[in-house]
């Protein structure tokens, strides 16, 4: 019974980590669209390349933070949470 409970905990953590990483898809698409639009803007006004690149870099970094949050949650679920939850379970069972 204990093995089953531990298996459920480990499986839940792995599933949670995988689901958290779905958020990693968004920044890739967002950054791609931002850069595509920036290409368009630079094509129209080549003299504004520096300003557009600066703004875009900042925008990309902000967009990427969402992915980072998901990444940290996934890492914690994979490496930190299983041991913690198993300890709680063992303590509860005595």
């Amino acid at each position: 019974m204990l093995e089953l409970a531990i298996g459920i905990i480990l499986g839940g953590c792995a599933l949670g980590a995988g689901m958290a990483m779905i958020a990693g898809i968004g920044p890739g698409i967002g950054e791609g669209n931002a850069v595509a639009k920036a290409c368009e803007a630079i094509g129209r006004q080549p003299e504004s390349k520096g300003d557009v690149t600066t703004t875009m870099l900042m925008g990309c970094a902000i967009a990427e933070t969402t992915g980072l949050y998901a990444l940290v949650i996934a890492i914690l679920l994979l490496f930190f949470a299983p041991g913690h939850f198993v300890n709680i379970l063992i303590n509860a069972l005595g």
Partner: protein
Amino acid sequence: MPKIDKTVKNETIYILYFEIVLSAVMQSVFLIIGKWDLSVLLGNLLSGSAAVLNFFLMGLSVQKAVEKEEKDAKKIMRISQTYRTLFLFVIAAIGVYFSVFNTIAALVPLFFPRIAIALRPLFSKKNNTDTQNGETDEK
């Protein structure tokens, strides 16, 4: 090796400065609460350098992408983002898995570039002046 754009260089240096300042603040907090040891410093060094490198690589990707067609630019950024996320995953996993690195100190510095960007408006006046000077020099 392609020439690094001046904007990418300047922005990376800006992020690097902030990373150093915020890392110092984090180390001070650990010292004040009495939890400082070598693992905190090592964790901070690991993820701090990874965060700056990640930003620099993103800058290089952007520099490469803006010279391409719209469709190729999208593709370049998506591929770059995938590899950079994988890179950060490995760094964060190393920071959490090995006890030689403090877990919190290995995860928090990854968000410092975001804080640096949030604080950017405070320094924007100075940076605008620098950019204008840079443009004058180029001309």
